[in-house]
């Protein structure tokens, strides 16, 4: 019988086994493991049963710590239980992992191994997380490919049931978790013959049961704890043999044989590399290649890393071995070596084979490429008389000089393998199409196939890269397609040519497919010099397709997926054209059939018309272009931006040496201004003839690309003719002042929110406003110059601005600009407002999530500085601890203020009582007061500067604290409602002066829209595919219950003035403040340009009541709660059914949708009634009813 083959990624391969072998699955989203939880949730939602015919119960927890606790409980009561996690999530599970192991409990956790946040967060893969749990008593089983992830998921389950030692099955995050590869599927029948039901019954029987009561989890004392810790030893001793036995049984059933350590290479190898994970795959392939050429080299792939079976390891080594290099995909600063290295050293010592020379090295941190050339470099190093120990490979370490030289020309790709690289825009569907294509190639032809996908760090306007390989031999190359290796390069967006060097991947004679607005006869002249040169010199076959036109005519919009996929198959000839088209259409029906006939039809039409619009270009012999590729950042950018950030933008980050970087993760702010992304097709254009200068467009802009200024009209003398202006209508700044609204054309994302919010309608043509969208390209150059001119106009002095009105507040310079957030992001306008109002004295603690990504992901970051160099100081600690992190900042400031004041009073004599008193009692409730205090502090420093007194020097260092600082704790609902809620609660309870801004998108936006406790009833989200059945948690109500927490619930789109007022009040309140901000998100499923209207409907329907709760009012005998929205005047459904997340439920289960909507309506009513009653209470104790 032919074995079933499928094309899937590592996460699906793993989850497909885990879902079939478990009863309870506790999940929590964390990249790159989230998809495993999503698959499990989806399958259970669809009614997919496990091996024993029952649907696994999937439950989302509030954190990984919570998931581990729930898993522990489920295991203790006898269920087959699993979870999926990575990185920080695994760290949060450590306490429970000790318990689970200590109690000898059978379970498997599946981990997509990922970096740990240290100097910076990284979502990418290495073994730092796994290595952080190697001491917990869990068995660690490492898989290195998609097939292995599938297989080891089963082997781990078999082994844990038999050994009673819990297993952590891990594979490399992204590299394996997200690689699509052709694998042989383990069928249900296979699984049935692999898993012993008696062992499951035994596991169940060990569960807590009041009919046979036992106690587990006692507290012990010095007399016995130690002995019991040792009592488990025999189980660990037995585990390797049990695992090998499972592997052997697995081999009998599936034909795929693994060992605890697998040796590959020359039988008389002298140099052997030891590695695990996907790196082991690269090592294996490389040594096989070299051994075939006669080199005495070998590889040991580590499968079972804990318990580390020394004997098996020694057995795996050929007797001929003289030296070993142990490669660790982790870093333990300060250790005498990385863990695998130490284990190898120890094994050789214990096995009395110390004659073998061992070196250790690090590779592949955060998914850093690990290629055959790097393996070769390691092997070459081993041949040296004095090889480097504790080396690194894959980077250029010019500081500690640990790195090995790598010769990139060493490549081992099989001649028969076809490699293809595709460049697309995130939104154009390129990745989806390529996943589809490689699936077709893998499943519909005899070819083996592999797909891997790479994204940049922005959330909108992302450049994606797809690396596809296929050929007659299995594809075992867990690294990107290398330079000069691609047989096919496709560029799905013409504008990339001016900034991305994509033809460096093409080999001589390769094919280049370009999506081009220009036809075969015109395109050549539109190519930059570098592109023309590569096409000529590499003798590329060059094809163009006007995919934009085909997409437009077939209703595909900006989606190039189907079109470019069709063109790829048509040119590449992998399948006969007719067969390829049939397969593409079949895939379209399969992928989109459920979405409706219209979707299938438009895709079919796109397929058909692609072929009619595909042309080969006759390549001229000469380079004729005058255009050159653009520099990533302008030459006037600061050195660090040019030499480091610019290189990252230009996709050369891998080549930057260690010395170029800060040692402690500290970066300059205000760097997004140098990264001009030009992603908007249309930008707003100001009409100064009808503008009323309200500033609303400035306030709503998520990317701070539209700004207004009032300035001395004399400055216009230097303005160009195209620079627009009008007389200022500001009361405070009228005579002699000019006014301009200016757009940053190259930073705009084209979201149109500014147009939507503009309240002005042209009286002669009501469709026109004071801001209107127009095509960007013809305006780009002119408006870029105008933007530069606008930016050098001085900002008004903050002292003169009363920020309590929208128009005035928007004169304050945004110190958060041009972030990589989605176009139309509903969070960033709030963040930007904080930066405007308080940014020059703000310290910000930012929870991990969207806001930490668009706020802090390299290459460039949006937090900026004002003309005086002041701006928000920002940091991200973790996801779960942000409130505490922010509180810590507050505590420092409070302490240092106190100390500074203490020191200051000691200098009364020298400084004068009056001056000291002025510093101590400064009124700092507004910018004028703060500025005056800044001047005093400057004077203080000046005066003390002459003193050599140690206390004076301390005071100089602390004096800045005498100027009021503003502590902001910012994060999303996943943090505030779920994982960080305990800390948030404690910080609010502390009474300290912190300002907490919750950007409530009602889902975990950053990881792709999983439900949180902020998700409203009746909405569909990941992990709530059948619609959330319970209401949104009322965080504001909980906070109000303290009585001393300032609470505001705001929706900028519904009432910007209320938002502004709440921000100012919250910051002015000397205690904890909580602002819960309605934040439209693409995960809601509607056009973000409509988010202002939608916010209004959310408020009008009672879904989002707006209020402010100011404890100060209670002190004045007034009710602190002021409700600022009216009684719900429209049904919840009128708001909800504008959003796909609600509508989807009607498409799944109309009756449930109706029922949940009815309940959601009741929620709104009850909430409103409760608030009304609270707001009606009187707080004047003397007053009698």
């Amino acid at each position, binding site marked *: 019988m032919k074995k079933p083959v499928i094309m899937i990624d590592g996460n699906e391969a793993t989850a497909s086994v885990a879902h079939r072998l478990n009863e309870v699955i506790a999940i929590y989203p964390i990249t790159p493991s989230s998809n495993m939880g999503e698959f499990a949730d989806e399958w259970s939602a669809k009614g997919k049963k496990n091996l024993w015919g029952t649907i696994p119960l999937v439950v989302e927890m509030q954190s990984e710590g919570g998931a581990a606790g729930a898993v522990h409980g489920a295991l203790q009561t006898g269920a087959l239980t699993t979870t999926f996690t990575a990185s920080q999530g695994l760290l949060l599970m450590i306490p429970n992992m000790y318990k689970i192991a200590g109690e000898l409990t059978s379970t498997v956790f599946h981990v997509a191994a990922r970096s740990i946040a240290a100097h910076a967060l990284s979502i990418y893969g290495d073994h730092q997380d796994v290595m952080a749990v190697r001491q917990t008593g869990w068995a660690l089983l490492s898989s290195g490919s998609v097939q292995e992830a599938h297989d080891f998921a089963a082997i781990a389950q078999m082994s844990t049931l038999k050994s009673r030692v819990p297993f952590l099955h891990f594979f490399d995050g992204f590299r394996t978790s997200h690689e699509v590869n052709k694998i042989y599927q383990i069928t249900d029948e296979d699984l049935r013959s692999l898993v012993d039901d008696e062992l499951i019954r035994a596991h169940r029987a060990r569960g807590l049961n009041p009919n046979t009561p036992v106690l587990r989890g006692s507290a012990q004392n010095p007399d016995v704890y130690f002995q019991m810790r040792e009592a488990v030893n025999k189980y660990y001793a037995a585990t390797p043999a049990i695992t090998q036995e499972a592997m052997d049984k697995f081999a009998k059933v599936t034909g795929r044989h693994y060992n605890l350590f697998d040796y590959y290479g020359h039988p008389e190898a002298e140099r052997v590399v030891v590695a695990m994970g996907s790196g082991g795959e690269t090592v294996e392939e490389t040594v096989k290649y070299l051994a075939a050429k006669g080199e005495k080299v070998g590889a040991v792939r580590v499968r079972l890393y804990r318990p580390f079976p020394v004997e098996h390891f020694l057995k795996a080594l050929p007797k001929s071995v003289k030296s070993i290099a142990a490669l660790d995909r982790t870093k333990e600063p300060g250790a005498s070596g990385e863990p695998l290295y130490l284990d190898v050293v120890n094994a050789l010592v214990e096995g009395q084979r110390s004659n073998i020379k061992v070196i250790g090295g690090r590779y592949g941190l955060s998914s850093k490429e690990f290629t055959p050339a790097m393996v070769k470099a390691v092997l070459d190093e081993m041949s040296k008389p004095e090889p480097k120990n504790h080396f690194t490979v894959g980077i250029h370490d010019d500081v500690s000089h640990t790195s090995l030289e790598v010769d990139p020309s060493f490549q081992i790709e099989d001649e028969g393998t076809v490699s293809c690289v595709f460049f697309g825009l*995130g939104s154009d569907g390129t990745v989806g199409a390529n996943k589809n294509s490689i699936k077709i190639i893998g499943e519909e032809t005899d070819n083996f196939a592999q797909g891997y996908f790479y994204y940049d760090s922005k959330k909108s306007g992302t450049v994606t890269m797809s690396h596809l390989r296929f050929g007659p031999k299995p594809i075992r190359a867990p690294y990107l397609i290398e330079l000069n290796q691609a047989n096919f390069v496709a560029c799905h967006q013409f504008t990339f040519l001016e900034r991305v060097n994509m033809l460096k991947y093409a080999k001589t004679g390769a094919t280049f497919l370009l999506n081009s607005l220009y036809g075969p006869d015109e395109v050549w002249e539109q190519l930059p010099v570098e592109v023309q040169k590569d096409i000529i010199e590499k003798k590329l076959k060059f094809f163009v397709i006007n995919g934009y036109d085909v997409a437009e005519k077939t209703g595909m919009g900006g989606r190039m997926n189907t079109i470019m996929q069709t063109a790829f198959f048509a040119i590449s000839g992998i399948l006969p054209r007719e067969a390829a088209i049939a397969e593409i259409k079949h895939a379209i029906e399969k992928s989109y059939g459920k979405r*409706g006939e*219209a979707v299938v039809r438009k895709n079919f039409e796109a397929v058909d018309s692609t072929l009619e619009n595909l042309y080969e270009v006759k390549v001229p012999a000469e380079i004729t272009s005058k255009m050159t590729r653009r520099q990533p950042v302008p030459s006037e950018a600061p050195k660090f931006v040019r030499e480091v950030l610019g290189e990252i933008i230009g996709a050369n980050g891998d080549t930057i040496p260690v010395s170029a970087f800060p040692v402690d993760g500290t970066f300059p702010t205000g760097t997004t201004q140098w990264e001009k992304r030009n992603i908007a097709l249309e930008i707003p254009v100001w009409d100064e003839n009808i503008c009323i200068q309200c500033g609303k467009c400035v306030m709503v802009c998520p990317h701070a690309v539209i700004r207004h200024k009032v300035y001395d009209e004399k400055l216009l003398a230097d303005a160009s003719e195209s620079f627009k202006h009008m007389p200022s209508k500001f009361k405070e700044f009228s005579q002699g002042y000019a006014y301009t609204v200016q757009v940053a054309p190259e930073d705009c994302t084209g979201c149109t929110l500014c147009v939507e919010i503009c309240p002005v309608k042209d009286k002669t043509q009501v469709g026109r406003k004071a801001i209107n969208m127009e095509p960007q390209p013809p305006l780009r150059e002119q408006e870029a110059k105008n933007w530069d001119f606008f930016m050098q106009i001085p900002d008004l002095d903050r002292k003169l601005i009363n920020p309590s009105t929208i128009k005035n507040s928007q004169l304050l310079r945004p110190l958060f600009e041009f972030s990589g957030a989605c176009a139309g992001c509903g969070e960033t306008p709030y963040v930007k407002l904080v930066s405007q109002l308080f940014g020059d004295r703000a310290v910000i603690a930012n929870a991990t999530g969207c806001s930490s990504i668009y706020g802090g992901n390299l290459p460039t970051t949006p937090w900026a500085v004002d003309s005086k160099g002041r701006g928000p100081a920002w940091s991200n600690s973790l996801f779960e601890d942000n409130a505490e992190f922010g509180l810590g900042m507050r505590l420092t400031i409070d302490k240092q203020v106190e100390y500074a004041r203490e020191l200051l009073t000691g200098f009364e004599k020298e400084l004068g009582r009056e001056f000291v008193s002025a510093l101590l009692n400064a009124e700092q409730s507004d910018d004028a007061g703060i500025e005056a205090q800044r001047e005093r502090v400057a004077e203080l420093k000046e005066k003390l500067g002459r003193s050599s007194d140690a206390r004076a020097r301390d005071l100089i260092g602390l004096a800045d604290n005498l100027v009021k600082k503003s502590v902001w704790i910012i994060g999303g609902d996943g943090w505030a409602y779920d994982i960080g809620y305990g800390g948030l609660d404690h910080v609010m309870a502390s009474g300290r002066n912190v300002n907490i801004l919750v950007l409530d998108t009602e889902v975990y936006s950053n990881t792709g829209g999983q439900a949180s406790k902020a998700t409203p009833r009746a909405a569909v989200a990941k992990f709530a595919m059948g619609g959330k059945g319970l209401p949104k948690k009322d965080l504001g109500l909980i906070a109000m219950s303290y009585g001393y927490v300032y609470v505001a619930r705001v929706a900028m789109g519904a009432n910007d003035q209320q938002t502004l007022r709440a921000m100012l009040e919250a910051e002015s309140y000397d205690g904890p403040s909580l602002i819960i901000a309605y934040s439209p998100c693409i995960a809601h499923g509607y056009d973000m340009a409509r988010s202002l209207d939608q916010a209004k409907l959310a408020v009008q329907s009672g879904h989002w009541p707006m209020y402010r709760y100011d404890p100060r009012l209670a002190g004045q005998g007034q009710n602190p709660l002021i409700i600022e929205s009216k009684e719900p005047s429209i049904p919840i459904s009128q708001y909800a059914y504008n959003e*796909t997340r609600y509508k989807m439920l009607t498409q799944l289960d109309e009756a449930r949708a109706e029922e949940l909507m009815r309940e959601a309506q009741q929620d709104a009513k009850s909430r409103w009634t409760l608030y009304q009653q609270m707001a009606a209470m009187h707080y004047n104790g003397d007053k009698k009813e």
Partner: protein
Amino acid sequence: MPDLSTTYLGLKLKNPLVASASPLSKKVERARKLEEAGIAAIVMYSLFEEQIIHESLELDHFLNRGSESYAEAMSYLPDGGLYGISPEKYLNQVAGLKKAVNIPVIGSLNGVSKGGWTSYARKIEEAGADALELNMYYIATDMDITSGDIEDTQVELVAEVKSAIKIPLAVKISPFVTSLPNFARRLAEAGADGLVLFNRFYQPDFDLDELEIVHSLDLSTSADLRLPLRWISILHGKVNADLALTSGVHTHKDVLKAMMAGAKVAMTASNLLHNGEQAIGPILNELEEWMKEREYESIGQMQGSMSQTSVKEPAAFERANYMKVLGSYRDLP
């Protein structure tokens, strides 16, 4: 006891009062109540192909939005092929209504594509509808399209749908046709078994505060009866199709007028939307009372009795403006 029964599209109806296409048919329970209250047939709410297409493309758009763009979020909404857009909901409702009531259920369809009209018509037939009403309208805004072009397209469409189904076919038309009799005859010749006069449309209004267009559909009043009344009177006996009057049917008098003009049925929706199914009983009772008082034996007796061909002064239906007519005169021998 006068006989209230009538036939429409070959369907035997117990009386001439039919619920026209409206949201009332969205709930099986509501339809059952209409039947209990005495309604003779139900025209279902329309299956709008355009809406299905829109919802389908919309779902596709938002499921794709932001997907495969960012390493941490491969998508932003769950999918898994669980959520779907199709005419199933409508077709299930046809089947559900057929099961729940004993009166005829007439499907209603508004298509946009040629293939859509015929394929959905077939599906509605398969779902068990007793007849199909095509909800045809076209707001012509293109200066290059002539009235002839539009009529040709619609006539062609009727012929195509007719050939695709076996159940009777009615066509609901707009009053905005230059020569309605000719168009009506062409539709009948193309295969329409019935013509429903007239479709009512949302008319845009202006919000002077916001300077925006607002859409609303006002419920009809008895005054709205006049327009279809005139045209049914004119068409009666001249086209080979059953005529149905819709718009402005609120009282038994409205029903009587419709019948006398020549309609086989009088369709009502506004009244039911406003007053609920309780409005049906009184209309039918008063209709019966009126007939008893005037000693009418059957509805059939009065159908067309005041049509253009039956009245003394056929020109009354042709006048568009008030003319001061002092008296009639005639040539006497």
